[in-house]
C-alpha cells in the first residue's frame, strides 16, 4: 500500500508540472491588457481596478487572490459585461478568442454570457430565482442560447447536467424549488446552470466562501473533475489561499486594484517574490505549524481607495519600503519562467547584481 501511495505521488507530481507546461502551449483564450475600472462616486473617483493584465490559456485554472477591495470581483464583472453604474471601464483591452469584448453590443454581450463564458457567484440563494423550479431555470439558460432545442430535449439535458454535478434523484429534484435544496446542493445547481451551454470559460467568484469546509471540499473536488472532463478554463476568485493551493495552476495576487505577483501555484507558494504575498503566507496559521509559533501579521490597514497612496499601493504597509516606493509605481519584473512580480526590490537586486558583476 505504501508503494502504491508513493507511485501515485510521483505520478501526480509529474502531472502538476506537466499540466503547467501543457497549458502554456495552449491557445490564449482570454487576454486582459491594462484593464482599468473606475467608480465615479459622490465622494470621488475610486480606481477599483487600475491597469491589470493577464492571460488565460485554454484548460487553465487561474486563481485571483486578494482581500476585500482589491478589485478582484470588479475585474471579473467587467469581463462579463455585468459592471453596473457608477462603475465604468476607462481603459485597457479585453480579448476573448480573438474578439474584442469591450466593443460588443448589448445583444452580442448576451450571446457571450452563459454561452461562451459563464459565472458562478458566492451566494447561490441570491442567484437562483425562488419562484421558479431548478429545472425551469436550467432549461431557460439552455433555450436562451439554443432556440431550436425542444422542451423535452432541454429537460433531458438539464437532468443530465444535474447528474453530472452529483445531485441524486435528478429526475425528481429538477421539479423542486431552490429553498428545497441545501447550501451545497444549490451551489451544485448553480454550477450545472453555468455549464449547461458548455462554455469555454467559467468565472467562479468566491464559490465556496459561504460553504462549510466539508461541503467546500466536495465542491472543489467536483469543480476539479468537471474541469478535467470538459477542458474549460476557470478563473477562480477567492481570498482563501488554501483553496488556491488546492485547485489552481496559475495564480494572480491582487492588492488595491493592482497585480502584485503572477506565477504558477508552486512559484507563489514555495518561492513568493513580492513582499505582500510573502506577508500573506506568513500571517496565516497552518495546520502543520509548530507549537507556540507566533503569527507575523502585515501591519497597518487596507488601502483607502478614495485616497490611494501615490507610489506602490502596498508601500505604506511594506516592511521593505524604500523612498522610491512612496513616489513611483513599480513596474512588473520577470523573476522566473512564468513568474512576475511588481516590486522595486527586484530592480534594486538586479542593479546590485549587475554592479557586482562589473566590479568582478
Amino acid at each position, binding site marked *: 500500500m505504501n508503494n502504491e501511495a508513493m507511485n501515485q505521488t510521483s505520478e501526480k*507530481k509529474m502531472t502538476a508540472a506537466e499540466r503547467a507546461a501543457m497549458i502554456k502551449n495552449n491557445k490564449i483564450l482570454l487576454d486582459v491588457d491594462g484593464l482599468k475600472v473606475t467608480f465615479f462616486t459622490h465622494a470621488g473617483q475610486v480606481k477599483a481596478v487600475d491597469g491589470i493584465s493577464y492571460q488565460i490559456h485554454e484548460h487553465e485554472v487561474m486563481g485571483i487572490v486578494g482581500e476585500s477591495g482589491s478589485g478582484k470581483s470588479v475585474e471579473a464583472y467587467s469581463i462579463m459585461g455585468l459592471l453596473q453604474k457608477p462603475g465604468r471601464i476607462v481603459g485597457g483591452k479585453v480579448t476573448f478568442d480573438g474578439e474584442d469584448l469591450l466593443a460588443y453590443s448589448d445583444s452580442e454581450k448576451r450571446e457571450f454570457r452563459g454561452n461562451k463564458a459563464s459565472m458562478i457567484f458566492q451566494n447561490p440563494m441570491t442567484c437562483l430565482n425562488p419562484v421558479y423550479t431548478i429545472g425551469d431555470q436550467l432549461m431557460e439558460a439552455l433555450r436562451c442560447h439554443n432556440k431550436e432545442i425542444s422542451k423535452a430535449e432541454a429537460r433531458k439535458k438539464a437532468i443530465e447536467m444535474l447528474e453530472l454535478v452529483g445531485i441524486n434523484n435528478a429526475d425528481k429534484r429538477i421539479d423542486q424549488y431552490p429553498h428545497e435544496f441545501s447550501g451545497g446542493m444549490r451551489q451544485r445547481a448553480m454550477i450545472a446552470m453555468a455549464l449547461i451551454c458548455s462554455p469555454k470559460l467559467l468565472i467562479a467568484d468566491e464559490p465556496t466562501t459561504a460553504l462549510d469546509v466539508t*461541503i467546500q471540499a466536495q465542491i472543489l473536488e467536483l469543480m476539479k473533475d468537471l474541469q478535467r472532463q470538459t477542458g474549460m478554463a476557470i478563473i477562480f476568485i477567492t481570498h482563501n489561499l*488554501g483553496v488556491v493551493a488546492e485547485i489552481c495552476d496559475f495564480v494572480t495576487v491582487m492588492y488595491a486594484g493592482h497585480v502584485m505577483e503572477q506565477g504558477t501555484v508552486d512559484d507563489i507558494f514555495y518561492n513568493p517574490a513580492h513582499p505582500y504575498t510573502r506577508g*500573506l503566507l506568513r500571517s496565516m496559521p497552518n*495546520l502543520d505549524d509548530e507549537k507556540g509559533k507566533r503569527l507575523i501579521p*502585515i501591519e497597518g490597514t487596507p488601502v483607502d481607495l478614495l485616497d490611494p497612496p501615490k507610489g506602490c499601493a502596498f508601500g505604506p504597509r511594506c516592511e521593505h519600503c524604500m523612498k522610491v516606493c512612496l513616489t513611483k509605481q513599480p513596474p512588473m519584473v520577470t523573476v522566473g519562467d512564468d513568474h512576475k512580480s511588481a516590486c522595486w526590490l527586484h530592480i534594486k537586486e538586479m542593479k546590485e547584481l549587475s554592479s557586482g558583476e562589473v566590479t568582478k
Partner: protein
Amino acid sequence: MSGERKKLVETVKLRKYFPVSSGFFKTSHVQAVQDVSLHIYEGETLGLVGESGCGKTTYGRTLLQMYSPTSGKIIYDGQTIYDSEKNIRVDMKPYRRKMQLIFQDPSASLDPRMTVGEIIGEALDIHKLYPGKQDRADRISELLTRVGLNSEHANRFPHEFSGGQQQRIGIARALAVEPQFIVCDEPISALDVSIQSQVVNMLEDLQAQIGLTYLFIAHDLSVVRHISNRIGVMYLGCLVELGESYELCAHPIHPYSQTLLSAVPLTDPEKNRTRSRILLQGDIPSPLNPPSGCRFHTRCPYATERCAREMPQLKEHAPGHYAACHMLDAGA
C-alpha cells in the same frame, strides 16, 4: 497534569432546544445543543469548532445565559449559576461583569448612532464603574490604547473605521468591565486575511497581560488550532471530540473530526496533491429531526447498526483526549 488546575467555567449536560411551531397546537424543537458537558480551566483558551448549525454559537450564548437553557447545569468559578434540577437561577448582572462576549460581525454589533466613546462608556455606566467624568474618559482612552487605537478615536463613529478597527472597538467594549472570561464568537471570520493575524495576536497578548480565559468559537480549524490550548469538536449539537489542540489535529480519533481536518485546504500545493481526503456524502441532517443514536451515523463511513440505536458517550481514550464513538469503544 491538568488535574490541579482551577475550572473557571463548567457545564454539565447543558441543553438548549428552540421551539418551532409546526402546525396548530403542535410544537417541535430545534435541538441546538444536546447535553454538552465541558469545563474551561482558568487562563486557558478552549476552541470550539464545527460546521454551521452545529450549535457552537448557541452553546456560547447559552453558557452566558443570553439564551435561557432548556436543562443542565452551569457552574462559574465554583458557584452554580444555573441548575435545572434544583431550579437554581441567579441574577446574572454581577456575572455579566465577569463574562463577556465578542461578536462575529463588528459593524452589526456597534450602534451606528453612538460614538466609540459612548459605546465603551455605556458598559462602564451600566456597572457603575469609574463614575467620575475624568476617570471615565481616562478609562476609555486607556482601553482604546490597549487595543491598538488612540484616544482621539473616542469621538468618532463606528462607520469611520475599517473592519479590523471595528473589531478592536468590540474587544475594547468587552474589556471595559474587566472580565475574567470572554466568549469570542467567530471574532475574525469577517476580517481580511492580513488583518486576522493582527487580531489573533492581540487576543493572545491580552490573555498574557490580564490572564483572560477564552472560549474561542470558529469554523477555521487552522486558526483555532493556533490560538487554543484545547479544542472541542461539535456535530449537530453534540460534543464529539475534545482534546489538547495539537494532539487533536495531529491524531483525530472521531471519524467526524478526521473528515473535518482532511477537508481543510492547506496552503501547500504539493501536500494538497498528495494527501488523501475523506469526502463526506450528503449534507448535515436537520437539527429539527436529528438522526437516532449517534447523530453522525447517517454520514459516517464506519457506521454500524449499533450506531443507529444508541447514542455514544464521551469517554477518555488517551490522557485528556475524549471522544464519543462506539467504534473506539469496541477497539479499546
